[in-house]
């Protein structure tokens, strides 16, 4: 009796195993040669609607890739994919999309529809990077076409976040800043120099509209305020006690930590910023002797004063343009029981900040 039941169970188990292989037939198959993988897109404002450009790689043979470049015009953002489809021999897949670039006029008009449509699609990775071009996105993408790398811009941004002056940014961070109260979006800003693409700082947004750009130096200040600024570098001016022409030296950040304290929630609010920075200094002018402790302390003091001044300047630039990439609004929100975004905006210009910086020179060159 029991044996018979055992055989029955085995049969049943076998049946189940055979049946589960059938599940594989339920899914839809996509072979890489039979689809068009969109890897980078660019959006520009056109006369009536938008112009979108897509970079697609053609995987013909191993090791050989050919970039294809398609431009479509459509009335709205949502229509661009179906329109593009009418130009292609295989269906589009955009699960591998890693970069979306907005042209300057497009970004000034507002990117809300673009980013919300990116975020709604579960296929699109949250690690996708966004960027703004100082001209039409199409022109910048045309330059990348020669690079034979569909992810050129993506890798460029990634590289600059890891080992450059860029604060951490991607689709998730943009979305966080866009919908978060008391924060504004910032995106990498591209330009073309001598026929090569160059990152030219950050584009600051108010709401979904591109407002102003900051240089790569100021991007480093923002990085220090937002996160650990490891690997960022900046040129610091220096002037000796009896010199009339100043020199510059290069400073590399080894690590930094910023702490914000709300002194009063206002209005007008008052925030104190404390920044601790560990720096590596190389190539100092030869009249500075880093081996001497006095000189090092003097240099640290000088750098502290410089950063305090620069951060104050950066904050007042933000206030002047009414953008808040640092998230001062969010800081005040977290301390107040009733918080109104509009009320904060009205008094943003009057926001008071005190900055204190503590620099330690930890390593010098050989």
């Amino acid at each position, binding site marked *: 009796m029991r044996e018979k039941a055992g055989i029955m169970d085995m049969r*049943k*188990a076998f049946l*189940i195993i055979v*049946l*589960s292989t*059938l*599940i594989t*037939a*339920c*899914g*839809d198959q996509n072979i890489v040669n039979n689809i068009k993988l969109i890897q980078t897109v660019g959006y520009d404002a056109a006369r009536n609607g938008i112009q979108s450009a897509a970079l697609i790689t053609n995987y013909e043979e191993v090791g050989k890739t050919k970039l294809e470049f398609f431009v479509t015009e459509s009335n709205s953002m949502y229509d661009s994919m179906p329109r593009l489809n009418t130009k292609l021999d295989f269906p589009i897949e955009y*699960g*591998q999309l890693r970069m979306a670039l907005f042209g300057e006029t497009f970004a000034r008009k507002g990117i809300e529809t673009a980013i*919300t449509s990116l*975020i709604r699609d*579960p*296929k699109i*990775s*949250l*690690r996708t990077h966004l960027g703004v071009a100082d001209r039409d996105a199409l022109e910048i993408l045309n330059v990348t076409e020669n690079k034979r790398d569909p992810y050129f811009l993506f890798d460029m941004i990634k590289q600059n976040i890891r080992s450059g002056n860029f604060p*951490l940014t991607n689709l*998730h*961070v943009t*979305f*966080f*800043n*866009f*919908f*978060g*109260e008391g*924060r504004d979006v910032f995106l990498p800003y591209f330009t073309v120099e001598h026929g090569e693409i160059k990152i030219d700082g950050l584009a600051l947004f108010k709401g979904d509209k591109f407002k102003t750009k900051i240089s790569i130096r100021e991007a480093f200040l923002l990085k220090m305020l937002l996160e650990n600024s490891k690997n960022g570098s900046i040129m610091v001016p220096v002037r000796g006690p009896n010199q009339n022409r100043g020199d510059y030296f290069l400073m590399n950040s080894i690590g930094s930590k910023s702490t914000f304290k709300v002194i009063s929630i206002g209005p007008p609010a008052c925030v104190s910023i404390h920044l601790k920075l560990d720096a590596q200094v190389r190539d100092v002018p030869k009249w500075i002797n880093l081996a001497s402790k006095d000189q090092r302390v003097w240099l640290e003091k000088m750098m502290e004063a410089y950063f305090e001044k620069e951060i104050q300047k950066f904050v007042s630039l933000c206030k002047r343009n009414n953008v808040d990439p640092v998230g001062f609004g*969010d*800081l005040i929100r*977290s*301390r*107040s*029981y*009733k918080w109104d975004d509009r009320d904060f905006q009205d008094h943003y210009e009057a926001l008071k900040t005190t900055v204190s910086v503590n620099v330690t020179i930890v390593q010098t060159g050989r």
Partner: protein
Amino acid sequence: MRNEISEEYMVSPYLIIFPLYVSIVGVGILNYQSKLIQHAGYNAWISVILTGISIHVILWMIYKILSSNRNDQEIISLNHTLFGKFLGNFVNLAVVLYFVYGAFVKFKVYIEMVQIWLFPRMNILPLTIIIALLIYYAVSGGFRSVTAIGVWTILISLPSVIPQVLLTLPFLHPLNLLPLLNHSATDILLSSKTMVFQYLGLETILLFYPFIKTPAKSQKWAHIIVIFVTFLYLVLLILAFMFLSEGQLRHCIWATLAMISIFEVPLLQSLEYFFVSLWFINIIAGISVYLWVACRGMKTAFRIGQRPSLIVFLIAAVTLNYFIKDHGRIEWISELYGTVGFYFIYAYIPFMFVCVLIRKRLAFHFEERKPA
């Protein structure tokens, strides 16, 4: 009244953590965050703690009800004794249908998730039939095999959730949790009510209780698993709060999946796909417990064999699943289930608890003792 259960069908007391875990935790753990903040905003973590505490009280009541009488060790027979044959059977039918409904909601919500995340264009009927066959296989193996699937679920799904979620650490903004208390007590309680939905499944113990060897010893384990589940919900909620800004969470339905999808590994760029697939076993296990419980109820209440009722339930689930496609209706179905479940837990169980207490008091008063 009661069928003797042979020991070969029973499980050890500590094993109940598995059927309890799989019946409590379902698809809800992937998207409860955005529902929870509708009232209490980012103070909703307090609501999770409040609901967790109330669930412990309910669990204590369940054990009091079930251990009240040595003869009637489950809710079906207890309904008979308390309400008489006709009314008792009416209540029993409602209880059985409630569990079938719960199983269907789990089934439907998972299928919908597969359609959203994995295969939007897939023909869903073959998939549901195969899932139904798998469930048939699991449930017809008896309570022990249902428990065993639960063991596999915990072994497979938990290790795959926890490390992935911790990878969000570089993106966390602890500032989001502040200010700590800027919502009224009413709002926090309303969110607690929404949270109850995530604990439904606990009541399956009302029916599988007699299948535990020395049931009294299992109470400790039941409380442990509720503490664990509360902790899991709390951690995922607080991580989601720090990972997503409040406005963003309102736009983000699948918050847990969003947290997982921030991480990329070579070759597997979208880990959330992997995760949705792994969640399959969790859902199979959960539905199995629900359907096993429903079939068991049918057997003790109406003397209908477990196999025929299981087949009927599965066919009903597959057919209904085929005809219900609209997202709004699915939402409505699961919300209705949430409401029914809320009253099941916070009205029916305390009511039974009071009834059992009164009955005990009366029995004590008249010094009448039924033969053991």
